[in-house]
């Protein structure tokens, strides 16, 4: 109802920021078209390269500030992999670190005004999650053979319950990539959309006298949401990574 009242003045397009469009010219988005998604993925890669190659160029024993940040990130994920998934999981450290850095940089660069957030797209997060799922499944069977199936056979449960539990375990196993990907994309999309909705209320002061109250409120709300989004941007990257480690642990040690 309120929307109809000043609907002609305020433009609500909270989802427009997620549209994938060609960067040069108009037209359809083909497989190899350079799009805004391409640009922001490239910027993430570039930022990571800057931090991890240019920043660590000095190989200093006493690190510079930038090198400290790179080392901090390295230590953070290295410790996470080792603590959660065990020492032998460190083989996968480069892979997990790649995933973590891509997500965390996409999330943070996506918080820049006018930016595009690749990780808000289910297509992107699904590929990441399916990659993890396939890796974990292949590693599980390669390391344990058929013994990997004991992951679904809860030997500590009473025998009659085990087939039912096995069914539940199998379903939960296959739901993993779904929740893994939707969690990340959903969080990124929701926050950005909410900020956009609040932003749409901000120019109300130009249209109506109610705006005197609504405009400052919406600006405060945008600021608060932005702070929350900074938190979410890191936490979701962290959650995605630590879940990857947990799944990897299951693959390496399937016995409950």
């Amino acid at each position: 109802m309120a929307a109809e009242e000043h609907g002609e003045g305020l433009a609500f397009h909270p989802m427009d920021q997620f549209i994938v469009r060609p960067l040069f010219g108009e037209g359809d988005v083909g497989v190899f078209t350079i799009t805004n998604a391409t640009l922001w993925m490239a910027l993430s890669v570039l930022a990571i390269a800057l931090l991890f190659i240019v920043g660590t160029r000095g190989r200093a024993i006493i690190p510079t500030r930038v090198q400290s940040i790179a080392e901090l990130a390295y230590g953070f994920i290295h410790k996470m992999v080792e603590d959660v998934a065990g020492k032998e999981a460190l083989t996968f450290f480069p892979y997990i670190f790649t995933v973590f850095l891509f997500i965390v940089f996409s999330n943070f660069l996506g918080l820049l005004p006018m930016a595009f957030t690749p990780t808000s797209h289910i297509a992107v997060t699904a590929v990441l999650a399916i990659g993890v799922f396939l890796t974990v499944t292949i590693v599980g069977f390669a390391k344990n053979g058929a013994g990997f199936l004991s992951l679904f056979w809860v030997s500590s449960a009473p025998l009659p319950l085990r087939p039912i539990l096995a069914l539940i375990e199998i379903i939960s196993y296959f739901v993993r990539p779904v929740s893994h990907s939707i969690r990340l994309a959903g969080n990124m999309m929701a926050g950005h959309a909410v900020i956009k909705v609040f932003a749409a209320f901000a120019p109300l002061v130009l249209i109506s006298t109610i705006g005197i109250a609504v405009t400052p409120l919406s600006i405060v709300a945008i600021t608060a949401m932005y702070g929350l989004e900074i938190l979410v941007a890191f936490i979701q990257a962290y959650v995605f990574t630590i879940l990857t480690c947990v799944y990897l642990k299951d693959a390496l040690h399937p016995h409950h």
Partner: protein
Amino acid sequence: MSAETAAEHGAAAAHGAEAASSGGMPQLDFATFPNQIFWLVVALVVLYFILSRVALPRIGSVLAERTGTITNDIAAAETYKQQAAEAEAAYHKALDDARAAAAKVVEESRAEIQKELDVAIAKADAEIAARTAESEARIGEIRDSAAEAVTTVAKDTTKEILGVFGVKADARSVTSSVTARLKGGAA
């Protein structure tokens, strides 16, 4: 309320085909999926090679080197500390030795001086004794000669007196009588 409306609007549009237009969910525009997936895979592969070939070995070696340096430095510090303790012990030992040597030198010098002193005292005592003896001898001599002189004087005086009185006394009797008198007088 507006958010609700927008969400409804969005949901409605999402069900429509090719939701690329405003209001739909661009996430469900399957036409862009191949593009996103292709570029994502490119980005991830590039990133993986950057990290696994360059960045991670570099950081790993820097961290290992730092750990090594710190361990070495701590070990070196331990060695230096040990050396400092040893040096201190050596210093104290040298100090004690020096004190002992000094004390010994002092003792030796004192003993030597004492010895010299004793010798000098003994020598002085001997000299004093010798001089005393000599003096006593001379005093004795002087006393003897004085007594002799007295006797002679007494004899001569007696002779003279006797001569004055007109008595011619022989020398022998005078001498014996004077000697007897002197002895008696002395006694």
